[in-house]
């Protein structure tokens, strides 16, 4: 647990931006998905991104670890600019963990092997150490007893917690979440959100696309609202929910909160 404590210290919010998107544009063919995105995220900050379907939320956070390529503007992560240089992309990916809507665990590997794969093959960690670290994180997401099972034998909520543990095993500086709870049954959403709240409390820099407004209210430092490829509004959660500035934001909030 020592390691986690250290990480906590170094993850305290500081003024230094760890993710900087400046004038980012992206097109899919003729379709302009991201329009002039400017966003600075400080170390230890927790950002929640929301917005209607198709607004480009996923595309934006996927640009941060280059799962998608941007065509204009600059993205600097952890001091390194994302270009087509493979070495730099690999470097950034080592520092950025990502959790997906559909978990994307490797079905042919046990939970433990899922967690140790990247530490062993990317970080070159000895197998024994990697397994120790993996067990620590599996304990932290409260499923150490499932370590020997295959992902196909777990519930959705358990799978998503494994996915979170798997990312944490790389000891990342930043965690990205793309709708981590939207493929889950209501009963399982809470267990995953609890894990994420715990992670937020440990001081991890997080960027999370979600429509769980309760989560946004409790942990976010900033909420970002996107529509049609642009960031329309960004504010700290209390202001964002109680006093939205933009008409589009008001409409969106009334739709997701108003029933």
């Amino acid at each position, binding site marked *: 647990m020592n390691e986690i404590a250290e990480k906590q210290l170094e993850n305290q919010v500081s003024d230094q931006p760890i993710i900087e998107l400046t004038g980012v544009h992206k097109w899919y063919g003729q379709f302009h998905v991201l329009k002039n995105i400017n966003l600075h995220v400080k170390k230890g900050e927790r950002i929640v991104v929301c917005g209607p379907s198709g607004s480009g939320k996923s595309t934006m956070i996927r640009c941060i670890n280059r799962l998608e390529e941007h065509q204009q503007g600059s993205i600097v992560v952890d001091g390194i600019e994302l270009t087509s240089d493979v070495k730099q992309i690999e470097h950034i990916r080592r520092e950025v963990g*990502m959790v*997906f809507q559909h978990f*994307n665990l490797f*079905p042919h590997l046990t939970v433990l092997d899922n967690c140790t*794969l990247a530490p062993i093959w990317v970080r070159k960690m000895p197998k024994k150490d990697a397994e120790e670290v993996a067990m620590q994180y599996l304990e932290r997401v409260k499923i150490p007893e499932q370590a020997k099972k*295959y992902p196909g034998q777990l519930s959705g909520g358990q799978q998503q917690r494994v996915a979170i543990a798997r990312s944490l095993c790389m000891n990342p500086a930043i965690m990205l979440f793309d709708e981590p709870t939207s493929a889950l049954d209501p009963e399982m959403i809470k267990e995953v959100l609890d894990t994420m709240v715990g992670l937020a409390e440990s001081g991890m820099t997080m960027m999370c696309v979600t429509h769980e407004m309760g989560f946004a209210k409790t942990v976010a430092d900033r909420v970002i609202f996107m529509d049609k490829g642009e960031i329309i509004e960004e504010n700290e959660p209390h202001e964002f929910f109680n006093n939205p500035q933009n008409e589009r934001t008001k409409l969106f909030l009334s739709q997701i909160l108003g029933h």
Partner: protein
Amino acid sequence: MADFTPSPDLAPPSLTVGPLGWVRTNLFPDPFNSVLTLIALYLVYLTLPPAIDWALLKADWSGTSREACVSGGACWVFVHARMNTFLYGFFPESGYWRVNLLYFVTIALLIPLFVKQFKYKVILAAINLVAFPLLVWILMSGGVFGLSHVETSNWGGLSLTLILAAIGCVAALPFGVLLALGRQATNMPAVKTMCVVFIEFWRGVPLITVLFMSSVMLPLFLPEGTSFDKLLRAMIGITLFQSAYMAEVIRGGLQAIPKGQYEAADAMGLTYWKKTGLVILPQALKIVIPGIVNTFIALFKDTTLVIIIGLLEVLGMVQTALNDPNWLGYSTEGYVFTAAVFWVFCFSMSRFSQRLEARLHTGHKR
């Protein structure tokens, strides 16, 4: 508030379980299927007893010449008398032990791959890929370690069938994997085009043509005086031909892997080859085990085609024996024997593929 108490589990209706239940659900579920079952039983009754009578009850087993075959059933004496050539071709009799040793060592090298506890399967498999052709060359061809040299034209029979098939499989699989990966490499158009052209070329020509070209045309293109073993040429032809098929089978597996798997591997910072080797291929190959084994079985049977360039594998040897004036008229026995040999090998491969699938099953997808 009333507590929820689950209802007790009841035993299933007796007519759906046990042998009687099985007969009922599988053979006589409704009138139409009952009629089909009866027709099938009648056909079995018509064909099976005479076949057993011919092949086993009335057959002649012992003896050395056709005079021993008098009972009117199958004359297995013929197969027995020619067994050595069926198994070893024209390999010198004093060297049979070399062929046997090859079988033995190959099997010994393969067994650990099927032991659950054995940890270094991938390493051993890789070693086998290299060791096997080397062993074949040392033991069969000789000329080293004091072993007398045996020309490849003397190789034949079942040993030649097995060598052709095994080398074909061993070489076609990795080639096929590389070709399939190449064909998927959309970000490297040159590589992709080369793979597509290669695959489509080899899939477009019949194997007979390939074998003819390898034995008749290729020497015309080679510089004068270079001789290049006929068997080796046939092997290369078969390998290239089968790797094109293999590539398409494997590509099917690659396409079945959800995009999320690639993305998760990328997001972790795995390089292309690590992602491919650790995440994508293990899953893709598992999905296409039936297709791969199907290709292996086809390859195994296709080895019989080498007869047209004068190489005599087991079928070729049987046909040669049938032309022997001493044994004229026993072609049925010869072909039944050949069919049985092929069936045993192909069926084993098929069973093996099913076991492998069951072994690698890790629960529901995703």
